[in-house]
């Protein structure tokens, strides 16, 4: 009954988070859920059967088990990259918006520079140099995605710094750091949350893209990597839909879920949007 009530309160956020929770659980418990060891070589190119729910790939690895395990890397890289982007973006946004002056100019200048660089070519270029390491890729995506967060946070901080409670905190003797951490940060958190969800979706897409291009780590299975092998080892040509469709669907579903949550947040912050959605 509790679920029903939660669902009625905000169906978008509820269904989105239910979906994403499902994927996260599947990824976390994949070693116990997977019927086979995804690295074990068995008979190649098997069609779906009760023994192999989604068949096997070109070297005879069970695709269903692969799909479960690959979620760990895809989600892990996405979350760590989005977390890094959010922390950097919030810090820079608050600092620039609150302190203003020279610092603002410099920080926002840097933000604009990163913002105008086309993301994917840059990531491809750098990841070729960095080599295929998972922490490297997360760091790279995190460093690319903070500017849009910083911009949004800064514009909110610009109005917050004029707020009455900031002025009264100052009049009671609070310093800049105090006001930024205690009074500005909690008031931008809802915005950060909404932005984090979108960034997470973006980060997972970028990770999938570079893995698909073959620039990912071949010793770690991710959904993008599965698509890459399905493409290069003839899964598409032989129309083995059970090979290339599931990882693609998994990516699409996770991003769909994240967008549902984001839509829910937006509807909450701007109730007029509800009319448009209905």
């Amino acid at each position, binding site marked *: 009954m509790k679920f029903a009530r939660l669902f009625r309160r905000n169906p978008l956020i509820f269904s989105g988070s239910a979906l994403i929770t499902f994927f996260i659980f599947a990824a976390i418990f994949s070693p116990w859920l997977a019927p086979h060891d995804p690295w074990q070589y068995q008979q190649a190119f098997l069609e779906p059967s009760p023994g192999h729910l989604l068949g096997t790939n070109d070297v005879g690895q069970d695709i269903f088990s692969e799909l479960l395990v690959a979620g760990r890397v895809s989600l892990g890289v996405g979350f760590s990259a989005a977390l890094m982007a959010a922390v950097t973006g919030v810090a820079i946004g608050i600092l620039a918006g609150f302190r203003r002056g020279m610092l603002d100019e410099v920080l926002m200048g840097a933000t604009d520079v990163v913002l105008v660089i086309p993301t994917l070519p840059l990531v491809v270029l750098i990841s070729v140099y960095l080599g295929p390491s998972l922490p490297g890729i997360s760091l790279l995506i995190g460093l690319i995605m903070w500017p849009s967060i910083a911009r949004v946070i800064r514009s909110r901080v610009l109005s917050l710094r004029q*707020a*009455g*409670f900031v*002025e*009264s*905190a*100052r*009049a*009671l*003797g*609070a*310093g800049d*750091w*105090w006001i930024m*951490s*205690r*009074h500005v940060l*909690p*008031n931008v958190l809802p915005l950060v949350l909404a932005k984090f969800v979108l960034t997470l979706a973006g980060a997972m897409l970028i990770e999938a893209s570079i893995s698909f291009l073959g620039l990912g780590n071949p010793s770690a299975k991710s959904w993008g990597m599965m698509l890459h092998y399905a493409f290069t080892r003839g899964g598409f040509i032989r129309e083995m839909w059970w090979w290339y469709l599931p990882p693609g669907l998994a990516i699409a579903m996770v991003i769909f879920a994240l967008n549902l949550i984001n839509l829910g947040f937006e509807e909450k912050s701007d109730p007029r949007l509800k009319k448009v959605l209905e």
Partner: protein
Amino acid sequence: MTDSLLEVRDLHVRFNTPRGVVRANNGINLGMNTGESLGIMGESGCGKTVLILSLMRLQQPGVIVGGSIWFDGREVTRLTQKEMQTVRGKGIALIPQNHSTALNPAYTVGEQLGETLGRRQGKTGLWQTLRAGTPGAGTRDYENLRHVLSGLGFNDESVLRRLLASYPHELSGGMGQRVLIAMALLLEPKLVIADEPTTALDRATRAETLELLGRLSADTTLMVVSHEVETLVCICNRVAVMYGGRVVESGVTGRVFSDPHHPYTRILLQSQHLIRGKPVSSAAVALDMVNFPPGCPFHPFCPEAVPACSREEPPETVFDSGSVACHLYNGSGTCSK
């Protein structure tokens, strides 16, 4: 003048705007002793708010271009921003005018009062700041809170608890105002400044708040800024009337209201129907702060202006317990007319 707490001498504050230089404070002289309560009166735009913000050096983007502010033995205009943080709050505490914007919507009243208490005890580290919460029942902080709040009318334990757990938007006007007063008092400041304490309130809560501030003025040094004469009569034993960024008249409350010396004071009191005479519409005496008239700022509107008024600024004539800046008065404090 041994216990002089605040001494403002010839304070000039200017704002550089695209339209020109706005001379918001134009040679202000003001003194306050410990235990006194001073009311600052004047219409909107006369520089009242800039004056009190300047006392705490929060007048930015305005610039203090001249004069001195002595507070508690220190020259405020010469302190660094770091030193100012010890003056603000513990030295001079401001009661903001509107509780609905002056409290942070993200925290409960208890958390915000707890933060203020932490500040008094010097817990200003990042971690301590982020963790500051409602003081738990029975702790010394809680007793401190209860002591201050019961003085403001929150005597009942359950009412107090409910107040501490509520968010700012749940407060009524009178409650919010009392929370702001409590917040200022918790820091045990040497001087409390109330900025338009009654403008945002309805009539019933206004009477309540006035009574509260009146009681408060008995044991704290209180400065009240208001354009409502009524407010100041209730609370203050001295008043200063401001016009055009200057103090045009000051003195004991009773004397200023019963026997106003400056023509502007008379017009101000007439407009609020407190003394007999035809009220003058406020638009007729509104001053353009950019194109400042030479001489006395009030002379274009003054019914009693003499030729000298437009030529030179009137000197401030000081007599027993007050002062007046007008050409119509000579040194003895009597009208020359």
